[in-house]
């Protein structure tokens, strides 16, 4: 009950639709418009890439030119003009800031407005006993600040922008970059390989439990800019890390492209918990503007007893095309996928997961909750594949869809491919609207219709929400309320 009151207040506070829709006036430096080898060399030079990385980018570009944009997802959008995008935009004053004082105060204010603390002392001055979270802030194409690095370093954890990691730890980056998502994996991943400009690199050494939550905050600010970040997280034997990712963008009339790649590698007995609250600008009520979120996320459970857990709350973006996946190669490895996807107005989401069972005794769980309203379309697309050598695999999948308007669509497209007789695979899915009985019960107890719907929706999503780290769970619940604003009655 408390949650729904809070949600309502949040909705009231939120100055109508999208509360992160402001843009920041900073001087930016752009690559020339469009994409060609020169632009890639420009980005590479800006990042001071070693030769192998430039070659890698150029090879990816060559492959991308041959590839075709995928059309199988249940989303519709006008053709993207890949020559009408800036592939690199950086705030001018952040060429390697030594301290936060050198960062453009406008950018600091942006993150303050977003509620992301970049000053460690501010975090420390916060509520006593509040958990510390280290933040890497990515603004357009570059990382502007990374907090708590000293403390993490003393634990042996490497947490830095990937562009810095290329310089500081080239052997690690070179070994793992593209090892889980090969450069020719798909159209958008290949594009990313050619033009990625920043992102986060995390390395957790053997036996280390990362002392705090790590977080990256992505912000697209500049106009006509694409964001192509790349995240690489390696968890060595027996280590653990919880990683959070958040994203916002200003309200702009044109569509902006975001094509990220995330790669996770988990060794024996290690675990990565990866949580996302995706709140890119979804476009306005009439479907104008918004982010095209075409993301490739994949984790490799390389070691025995390794574990990857993806949790995502997807409320933003005009179009979402995203399938965080697990390659369960290690014996007894575990993959989890918990997802809430909300679409309103003219948003379209085609999202889900892939669980590829290669290792004996590997297990996976998929819980997906889709909520659609307005004129939106919300699809779950998932694959569970058990290879012939993978004995004693278990999978449980549950996909539920809730429809809140008569003009929206909810689709479920699961693929189940089992080639080992010892597998035990269960899949179930339901699609329905809020039952009149449930609504009536809440109303006759004195709740307004809006509160009743919020309550029921929160209950519908509870299984996923409880997987989120505490701070995120609160934010995500509020977001849910805001996203569904105006969908009742």
């Amino acid at each position, binding site marked *: 009950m408390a949650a729904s009151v809070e949600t309502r207040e949040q909705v009231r506070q939120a100055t109508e639709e999208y509360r992160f829709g402001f843009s920041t006036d900073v001087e930016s430096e752009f690559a020339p418009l469009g994409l060609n080898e020169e632009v890639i060399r420009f980005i590479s030079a800006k990042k001071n890439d070693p030769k192998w990385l430039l070659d890698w980018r150029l090879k990816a570009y060559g492959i991308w030119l041959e590839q075709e944009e995928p059309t199988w997802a249940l989303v519709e959008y006008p053709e993207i003009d890949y020559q009408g995008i800036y592939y690199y935009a950086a705030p001018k004053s952040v060429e390697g800031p030594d301290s936060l004082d050198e960062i453009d105060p406008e950018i600091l204010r942006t993150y303050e407005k977003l509620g992301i603390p970049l000053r460690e002392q501010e975090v420390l001055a916060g509520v006593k006993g509040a958990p510390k979270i280290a933040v890497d802030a990515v603004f357009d194409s570059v990382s502007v600040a990374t907090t708590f690095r000293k403390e993490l370093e003393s634990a042996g954890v490497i947490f830095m922008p990937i562009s810095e990691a290329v310089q500081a730890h080239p052997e690690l980056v070179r070994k793992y970059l593209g090892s889980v998502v090969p450069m020719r994996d798909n159209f958008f991943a290949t594009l990313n390989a050619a033009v990625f400009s920043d992102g986060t690199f995390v390395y957790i050494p053997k036996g280390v439990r990362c002392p705090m939550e790590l977080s990256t905050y992505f912000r697209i600010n500049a106009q006509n800019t694409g964001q192509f970040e790349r995240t690489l997280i390696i968890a060595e034997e027996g280590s653990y890390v919880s990683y959070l990712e958040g994203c916002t963008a200003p309200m702009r009339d044109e569509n902006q492209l975001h094509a990220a790649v995330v790669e996770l590698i988990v060794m024996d007995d290690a675990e990565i918990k990866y949580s996302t609250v995706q709140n890119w600008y979804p476009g306005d009520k009439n479907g104008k503007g918004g982010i095209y979120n075409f993301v490739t996320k994949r984790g490799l459970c390389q070691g025995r007893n390794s574990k990857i857990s993806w949790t995502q709350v997807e409320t933003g973006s005009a179009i979402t095309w995203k399938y965080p996946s697990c390659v369960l190669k290690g014996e007894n490895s575990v993959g989890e996928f918990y997802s809430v996807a909300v679409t309103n107005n003219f948003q379209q989401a085609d999202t889900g997961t892939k669980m590829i069972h290669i290792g004996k005794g590997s297990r996976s769980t998929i819980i997906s909750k889709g909520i659609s309203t307005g004129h939106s379309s919300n699809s779950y697309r998932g694959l569970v594949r058990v290879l012939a050598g993978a004995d004693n695999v278990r999978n449980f999948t549950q996909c539920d869809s809730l429809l809140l308007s008569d003009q929206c669509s909810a689709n*479920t497209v699961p693929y189940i491919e*089992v080639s080992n007789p010892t597998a035990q*695979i269960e899949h*179930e899915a339901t699609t329905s609207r809020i039952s009149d009985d449930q609504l009536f019960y809440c109303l006759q107890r004195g709740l307004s219709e809006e509160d009743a719907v919020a309550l029921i929706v929160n209950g519908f999503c509870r299984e996923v929400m409880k997987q989120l780290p505490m701070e995120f769970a609160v934010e995500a619940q509020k977001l849910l309320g805001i996203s569904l604003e105006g969908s009742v009655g």
Partner: protein
Amino acid sequence: MNEKNQILDAYDTAFHAAAAGLPGSGTDWATSLRHDAMAGFRASGFPTRRDEAWRYTNLTPLQKRPYLAATSANEITGIERADLPRRDMDGARIVMVNGRFDETLSDLGPLDGSLTFMSLARALDEKPELVEPYLVGETGEDGIRRLNTALMADGSVIILPAGARPELPLEILYLNSAGENAAAHIRNLVVLEAGASLDLIETCRDTSGNGSAFWSNIVSTMVVGEGASLNHHQIQTIGSEALLSAAANVRVAEGGHYSNFVLTAGGLVTRNEIHILLQGRDAQATLDGLCLARAGQSLANVTIVEHQSPAASSKQRYKSILQARASAAFLGKVVVARDAQHSEAHQASDSLLLGEGATANAKPELLIHADDVKCSHGATVGALDKAALFYLNSRGLDPAAAKEVLVTAFAEEILECISLAPWRQIIRAEIAGWMRDGEKVSSQ
């Protein structure tokens, strides 16, 4: 690429050689329909695994060599009445040998007086206006159906007037006796006018015993009128080298009910596809299927159910039992249109894997564009429950008997919903036979 073109050329050549002799050649619309379909086939070729709906269908045999229509030249011998499978039910029987209606083997005596039956070949030649509304423009959605339209040589036209409800079931029996790599392209038309009701049985069997590589390509159009009820049963036990593609397009009007039960227990490749349009309020579709797959076989059930009108309902239940190195697939799609409120759609697919190298694939898909609906699907894949096996062993059943009890129980759930009682017994006997053969094969 070259091989593919050679194969398409072979079909093209065979078509042009045979076109003048195909039924309906004296009718303009029929001739142009065939030519359009052939041109379409020539352009598209056969589907491939890259085509989403064909993802789990093994099309390698069709891509390796042409299967040309059976002609008198490659038909081995005539089949005697005594060779026909035993009848366990009363009712009329239509017999198609190598894709052509065989009047002497058929048993049309018990045909209900209200029912119109005519072979497609005769209808095309003598009464083209009877089938024209159902065929014109229907070249087919994919290469296999286009080839069927171009080459259809015969089939059954069955028309039941309003209110007619024959008591006895009607059986269509398909037999193949032609040589290697022969094919039959059969086109059926079943029309039930308002309030009519029919039990229709389609049986595909291999009588030659030589297990030759014969391709049966059957396409059916079925129209279920207002309040009509078509109870469609299919039993498919073809030889281990034979191919079968059976596709049905079904339209169901207000208050109509189409139900289908299919037993698939043979063939190198068998694919059943049913595309149903529920076009009126309270239209219903009930689909049940059981696949029994042996090593090397690839069996698939593909369904598309479109709820185009409010308050229609559909229920699908498919089960597969797979021995070692067998493969079975279920691809089911339910589409609920924007205004089809109060739709109810349920889909279930369960697969039982009995041996190494068995592969079960499922893609139960829901595309829902209306909010006041109840839709669900469930899919499971697994082996026999070890605890249940142990329990039966501990009660004195030997492992083989225990396995048989559990497999039978798994299948029984789907047999319970067969309304035609004698038919249920026939299916049970088929399953028992299949299991015993399977034991023999695995103990060899």
